[in-house]
């Protein structure tokens, strides 16, 4: 008599899927190169655009806002690349035979994309500090705001890209779909950055940090609940 198949534990499944994501990225370097190059090109374009700004205050505010714009679009590029690769490998067909809730796949994809985006931002900041005269290291609280904002952008992004990648012109569609939803996150990120730069400290940035926390938690919870339903059948 054949033994009944043993279902792997949740943690083992997460570990296996996360290892798969890392292995694929280490082999192809597809996400890091596309997001990184895109972000660096954005910095060059921002640098050209801010040459004429003479006021220091305007310059500082503009550069920080533009870095958030670069982050947003780098995230969109990464999400499109990852979801496009899944479509080509019939990843969503394989979801049907997954012995766990599809939310596991969402969770792993979110964590891995977040890790790659954070790495891209680290490169972006290292380049932007000397080139754009960015005072990033004066604001250690940015180390809290950046991952929170990234989570808020990627949580709905991973959810929506799984569906938009399967249709013609899906890359443009993801941008159209994601930007309105991610606006609260963008407002929180730019608001917190502005307050920190204005010398308001954590107390000044607190309402925006709270907004980022609420958005991150809400979108992640919605993603975990809805990912399977969006991609079934």
């Amino acid at each position, binding site marked *: 008599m054949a033994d009944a198949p043993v279902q792997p534990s949740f943690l083992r499944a997460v570990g296996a899927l996360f290892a798969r994501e890392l292995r694929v990225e280490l082999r192809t370097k597809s996400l890091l190169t596309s997001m990184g190059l895109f972000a660096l090109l954005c910095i060059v374009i921002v640098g050209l655009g801010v040459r004429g700004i003479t006021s220091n205050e305007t310059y500082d505010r503009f550069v920080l806002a533009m870095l958030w714009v670069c982050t947003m679009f780098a995230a969109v590029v990464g999400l499109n690349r990852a979801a496009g690769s899944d479509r080509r490998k019939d990843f969503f067909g394989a979801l049907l035979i997954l012995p766990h809730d599809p939310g596991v796949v969402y969770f792993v994809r979110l964590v891995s994309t977040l890790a790659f985006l954070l790495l891209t931002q680290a490169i972006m900041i290292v380049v932007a500090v000397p080139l754009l005269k960015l005072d990033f290291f004066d604001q250690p609280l940015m180390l809290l705001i950046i991952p929170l904002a990234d989570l808020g952008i990627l949580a709905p992004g991973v959810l929506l890209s799984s569906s938009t990648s*399967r249709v013609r012109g899906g890359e443009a569609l993801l941008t159209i*779909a994601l930007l309105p939803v991610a606006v609260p996150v963008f407002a929180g990120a730019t608001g917190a950055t502005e307050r920190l730069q204005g010398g308001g400290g954590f107390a000044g940035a607190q309402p925006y940090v709270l907004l980022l926390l609420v958005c991150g938690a809400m979108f992640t919870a919605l993603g975990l609940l809805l990912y399977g339903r969006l*991609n079934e059948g």
Partner: protein
Amino acid sequence: MGTETKSSNAWLVTTVLAALGLIGAQAVLYMSYYYTPVQISEGTLWVVTPDRGNPINLYESYRIFFIHLPAAYSTALCCGICLVGGVMWLLSKQPKWEALTVASAEVGLVTGAMVLLTGTLWADYAWGSGRIGSGWNWEPRLTTMLILWLAFAALLVLRRSMDTPRQRSAMTAVYGILLGPLYPLVSKAIEIGQTSHPRNFSDLLTAPEIAHTKNLASIALTLALMALVALRFQWNRLGQQIEQERAA
């Protein structure tokens, strides 16, 4: 037989909502010109705009609120209906919930445009220079409303782009749910860095005649716009039936 009864009930609801809304709208039109004050005395309809520093008299420009406010309430309702429709479709997979989500997004697009247009026109007068577009100052309330309007448009574009009916329904439901939290943000945006947009219209419209007209306008026009949601719902249901018959 059952389907026919349900359909006629839905048409009855639509007709009653539309009739009540339109009768109310006529009354609002009458009241706004013959009941509310024309000569505004100092102190009743003055608003201080920090941009200008000096109080300005609203004169008769306040009448635009009789459209602006109900349109804003209807947009909020449409946002809520999108959320409910999305959740209900995911739970039941019944096509009627998809039709409702789409109908509310379509009407939300119209009411959102009404809010933005009437708001911008009044802002040009209240804190702008009088030139078209001069009142648009990218404040959080204005910007979040514009984003909500774009989100309604994004939902309609997204669903049209899906290849299969199944994907279309799922995307409509999921995006309807994601759209839901945007209205609380529009509502709360007044507390973040707001300088020009009034925090509470009741503070401005203190004359009792204006308050009565505003309340009636809010009820009547919201009913009329909800009749529009019901009408689009019927239309979308017919579309779904035709699609099913073609597929069969």
